[in-house]
């Protein structure tokens, strides 16, 4: 069937005119900060890669403590291009979180969260948390030593949260300690619950962007725009092709490793640490004193991290000048300090890890 016949077939049955009009009339601001607009699309591409590679991994992966490690090894050594699929899945996961962080930072500093886009920001922050959840649950699935003990530490930290912490810890672990049931639960979260949440939130996020269009930064006065289709879309394709090249290159040159199979009864190996995007929190916990004014230091650190997360989500409401279309230097400085803290603590944790 030719494309014209297909179009005629669809047009005869559905009102596609409105959609076509929306696409053809949609424009995107074009200015010196346009570079940052592509990070949302890049994150979307990486999530797409995650879904595709994850579905392929499901063909051979077996979610049990007895079989998980062997099945991942099988994927990497025996399955045609299995090594590539797993490496791409591992790398794209990290790059998706990195890309989402860059996207979030750019939206923050360009103040794109100001009305009427508050809910787009909230869904975006939630999506970043969800991606981190994907990382946390996916890390355990190969059932290797580092992942096993990192999950032990991670779920211990979850248990510190006042009130819901202990319940959440038992729920995540499926018992008092990390074991076979934990793997099943993390698998369930990783391939069912989190994807459902991701689909819903991502759909909402993209729909809001489409309905409201892209925000123009406060500092940009001229109102120059380009058509979304094909001009912006082609630029998106350029970015996607470049990101795809990066994902493939790192996957081939630094393929994902597997390590040793987890032994729940073995000693905790040295150098246990979470994935890089949790390192700043991990290091903060380590540096906090045991007690402050009679309260446990860990509890305060976890509490402060929670408050920071909440504050991040509520930026559109507490940045009052932005609501009135003004930029306040204090908000920008707060953002810079927050970003510097995250980068600094991550760097410090990496340095400490290499120079124990």
């Amino acid at each position: 069937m030719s494309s014209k016949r297909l179009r005629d077939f669809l047009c005869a049955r559905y009102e596609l005119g409105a959609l076509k009009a929306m696409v053809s009339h949609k424009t995107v601001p074009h200015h010196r900060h346009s570079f940052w607009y592509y990070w949302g699309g890049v994150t979307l591409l990486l999530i797409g890669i995650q879904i595709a590679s994850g579905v392929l991994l499901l063909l051979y992966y077996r979610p049990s403590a007895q079989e998980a490690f062997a099945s991942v090894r099988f994927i990497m050594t025996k399955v045609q291009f299995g090594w590539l699929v797993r490496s791409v899945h591992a790398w794209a996961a990290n790059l998706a979180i990195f890309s989402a962080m860059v996207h979030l930072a750019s939206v923050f500093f360009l103040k794109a969260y100001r009305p009427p886009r508050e809910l787009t920001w909230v869904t975006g922050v939630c999506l970043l948390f969800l991606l981190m959840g994907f990382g946390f649950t996916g890390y355990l699935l190969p059932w290797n030593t580092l992942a096993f003990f990192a999950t032990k530490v991670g779920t211990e930290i979850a248990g510190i949260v006042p009130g819901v912490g202990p319940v959440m810890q038992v729920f995540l672990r499926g018992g008092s300690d990390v074991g076979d049931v934990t793997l099943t639960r993390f698998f369930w979260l990783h391939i069912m619950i989190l994807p459902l949440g991701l689909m819903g939130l991502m759909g909402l996020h993209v729909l809001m962007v489409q309905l409201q269009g892209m925000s123009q930064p406060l500092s940009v006065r001229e109102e120059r725009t380009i058509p979304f289709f094909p001009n912006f879309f082609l630029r998106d394709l350029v970015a996607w092709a470049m990101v795809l090249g990066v994902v493939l290159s790192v996957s081939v040159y630094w393929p994902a490793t597997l390590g040793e199979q987890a032994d729940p009864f073995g000693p905790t190996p040295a150098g246990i640490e979470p994935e890089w995007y949790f390192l700043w929190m991990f290091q903060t916990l380590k540096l906090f004193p045991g007690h402050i004014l009679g309260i446990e230091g860990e509890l305060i650190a976890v509490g402060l991290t929670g408050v920071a997360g909440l504050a991040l989500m509520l930026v559109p409401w507490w940045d009052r000048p932005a609501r009135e279309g003004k930029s306040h230097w204090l908000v920008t400085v707060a953002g810079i300090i927050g970003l510097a803290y995250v980068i600094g603590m991550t760097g410090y944790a990496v340095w400490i890890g290499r120079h124990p």
Partner: protein
Amino acid sequence: MNAQQRGITRIGAVLSMAVMLPSVAVAADSCVECHKQWESGSSDPTQVIDQDVHFQRGLSCADCHGGDPKATEAEAAMDKAQGFLGRPARQDIPQLCARCHAEPTYMRKYNPNLPTDQYAKYLTSQHGKRNSQGDSDVAVCTSCHQAHGIRSKKDPFSPVYAANIPGTCAECHSNAALMDRHGLPVNQHWDYAQSVHGQALLVRGDRGAPHCASCHGSHEASKPGTIAIGNVCAQCHGLTRDLFAKSPHKAAHDALGLPECEVCHGNHLIKKPTDDMLGTGSGAVCISCHEPGSKGYQSAQQMRETIEQLKAQILNGEAVVKQAAELGMDMGDAEYALHDANTKLTQTRTYVHAFSPEAMQAPAQEGLHGAQQAEQEGKNAIHEFQFRRQGLWLTLLILILLVGGLLLVIREMESPPKSRR
């Protein structure tokens, strides 16, 4: 404090005890109560008695020395008419210990698992025989177990704890003056400490490694030469011994009266065997009996070649697998195959003791096959690695062309209408 001063102190203490005794209240064990007052040396009986397994199980000084521990006066407590033995004669110690330790019914009350044949065995030992003849140089029970403060052999501080046994035996057997009287050498402990067994026990702390008693026996310690060496070694090296027993060497050794394993491996100074011991090279033990051109000489050459061939193949496999692993390829299966090949190499070395080139072939061939398989997997992985890189560069080229094409399209599309062709 020298011996003379110590003697004077003790005499003084005994005299003062005689004066003090009437005033000592009735105690649970007057021996300990009184002797504690004048014994201060770290190895004196009352200083070590708390660690003694007998004392811990409720036995008292009087159970060995006789006397009345309930008596409050020295004369009554140590009355020979009442059975006080005092210090038993060295020669009588084995018999004294045997009063309980050779009595199964009595011993069952304390430790049902403890053998009760020590005394019977001791009487068959070189020590026991000489002791019966009145030789006061030889070891009696207390020589190894101590007289007071006797600890369980499982106690790391016991002189008969596995790792301490070589040192305990050496107290006499490294004493040149003592051994000289009996025409015995004193280098056994030194040799043992340098041996593969001594290094395992004394350096690495491997309590499964053999010590003096493992080969010579403990209570039944035998004179060298009266032990069937092959049977002793077979306690641990069972397969080796079986292979030897079926080999042509067995009959030859028996005919010549040669001690089986010892001929090639020595006795106390048993070094870790090397492949150089096999074959016809300068370090080979085979050539000490087999003349060039003889069948044995040729077999030795063939056996060495089999081992060298397997070693070379394993080395090849390891080099290729290592190279592939360094490239980031997962070589778990190949590494396992190499591990298996190394196990087969060990087996092949064990099968040397069949002294037949044919007998070595089965494990050697299995090892060769495993190592070749690992090498092939390594080569495949290196090929796969190169394929991945080439594939990546091809993909990147396509992506670069795509990006270039898209940028051209965008440029063409966004250029002012006049400049368009």
